[in-house]
């Protein structure tokens, strides 16, 4: 029976044989992420944009800034509206039409990452208190769904937010309606860098990082850890096989190294653009 039939017929045994030697079919060991490619500012019609390729998984984030009235109870705060689009373009499993359950859960996850990591201070989006604030529509478009879209989305959103340049708005006194000056652009102050790393649990005890789509289907549990600089910001393990607390905590160090890797990658890419 050739390797290919064995892999399609009995995927779990196939994986178990590999994982016993702490290596995966595509050659990566348990703690190794796929090659991450980052491209910032690829769409000029958006106010901020980024493209992330995590192995085959590709996510593009475009941010459009618009003006609106703030909510009465938070007159100084602007809005950040993240939405994940899992279009039928990226995988045969998705159908066209309104977003499915997974897309909604991911959009909610991105909203929680933005709110709890406080990467953008909402008050910095305020133009005139109580009258006019910025709203950043962050649309994350998944172009190729090969597992672990969450990490790619968080990275794409962060890189796009760093790329945002808002035009200056002046309120002219008599008519009170805003005037935009597209030439003078102000970058958005980013106060922290949320970086997410996702682990898959296999056979209740083996943990490996950055699962592909195939590994995600075989996994019996998924953990997503979002770290900001040296603090934990969001740990999300929805069900799946139970874990001893020690297993969970040694994931944290891997996540902290990952956040260093990512911040180095972002700075390199931003430097390569500025030059």
């Amino acid at each position: 029976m050739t390797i290919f039939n064995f892999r399609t017929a009995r995927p779990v045994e196939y994986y178990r044989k590999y994982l016993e030697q702490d290596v995966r079919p595509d050659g990566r060991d348990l703690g190794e992420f796929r090659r991450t490619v980052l491209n910032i500012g690829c769409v000029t019609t958006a106010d901020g944009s980024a493209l992330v390729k995590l192995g085959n998984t590709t996510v593009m984030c475009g941010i459009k800034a618009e003006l609106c009235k703030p909510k009465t109870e938070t007159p100084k705060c602007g809005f950040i509206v993240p939405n994940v689009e899992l279009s039928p373009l990226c995988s045969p499993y998705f159908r066209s039409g309104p977003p499915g359950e997974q897309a909604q859960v991911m959009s909610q996850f991105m909203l929680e990452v933005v709110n709890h990591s406080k990467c953008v201070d909402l008050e910095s989006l305020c133009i005139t208190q109580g009258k006019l604030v910025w709203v950043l529509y962050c649309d994350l478009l998944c172009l190729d769904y090969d597992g672990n879209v969450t990490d790619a989305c968080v990275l794409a959103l962060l890189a796009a937010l760093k790329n945002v340049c808002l035009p200056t708005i002046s309120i002219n006194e008599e008519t009170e309606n805003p005037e935009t000056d597209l030439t003078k652009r102000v970058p958005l102050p980013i106060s922290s860098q949320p970086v997410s790393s996702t682990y898959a649990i296999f056979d209740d005890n083996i943990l490996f990082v950055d699962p592909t789509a195939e590994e995600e289907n075989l996994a019996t549990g998924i953990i997503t850890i979002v770290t900001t600089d040296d603090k934990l910001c969001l740990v999300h393990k929805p069900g799946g096989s139970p874990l001893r607390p020690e297993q969970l905590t040694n994931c944290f160090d891997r996540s902290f190294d990952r956040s260093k890797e990512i911040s180095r990658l972002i700075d390199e890419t931003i430097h390569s653009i500025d030059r």
Partner: protein
Amino acid sequence: MPTDTRRIGGPEESFSPLAYTLTDSIKTLMVSSNGIRNDGRKCEDLRKMFIKTGVISQARGSAYIEQGETKIICSVYGPREVVRKEEFSMKGQLTCEFKYATFSCSYRRQHQQDSEEKDFSVQLLEALEPAVCLHKFPKAQVNIFVEVLQNDGSALAASITCASMALADAGIEVYDLVIGCSMKIHEDKVLTDPTINEEYDSQNSKQLNHGSLTIGFMPSLNQISAITSKGEIQIDFLKRAMTDCVEACQKIYPAMQQSLHSSIKDKLNASER
């Protein structure tokens, strides 16, 4: 519009800063006297083009095209079973979905498909249908999904080329490739492959002979599979524009062949390894 509860909702209504720009767009001359356009191209020059197939691992076939600043990605799935079981038909079914990304144009677009995108989906379908051998996959369906990442003019034409490359990459049997090309008719000049600010805008263009023309052309069969035009144009100008457009398609054809050639070569030595 009823609030869309399946997405994170922002404020009720927001407006784009572009609506309040002070600098009113001064009417730049579209074509200078000696026939040079704003971005330095002559009237019949195409923009720089980049085509790559096989960009999406999950799709049966995919293609990415960059025509100047217009960036479009397309994926093809199928032949797979038809979801809604209409009547039985020996011919296969082709469906097309054209979508602007919300950040692709200067004004933000909606997540749901609006009437222009529906119109483009139908035109894209009718441009590709004559080229596909539908009888080769009876009772099955081939889905084409096109997403415009950045729109800098002639999005429909570029998406026709991109979709036919994706079909070829997917190994769906086609009689011929379909090349999309669009022209802007400006008084007596015909501008090939217009950018977004050169494109026809019904409101601030003058009376006669201002319009745009988009053609889907099958090079080896020398057939036109799709033709649409906008704006008021005299007949002989229209005919001249059509012949120029067919010539422009002939110029695009070698680029597509070369890109398909190289992608098949990669697949061959990938499978040898």
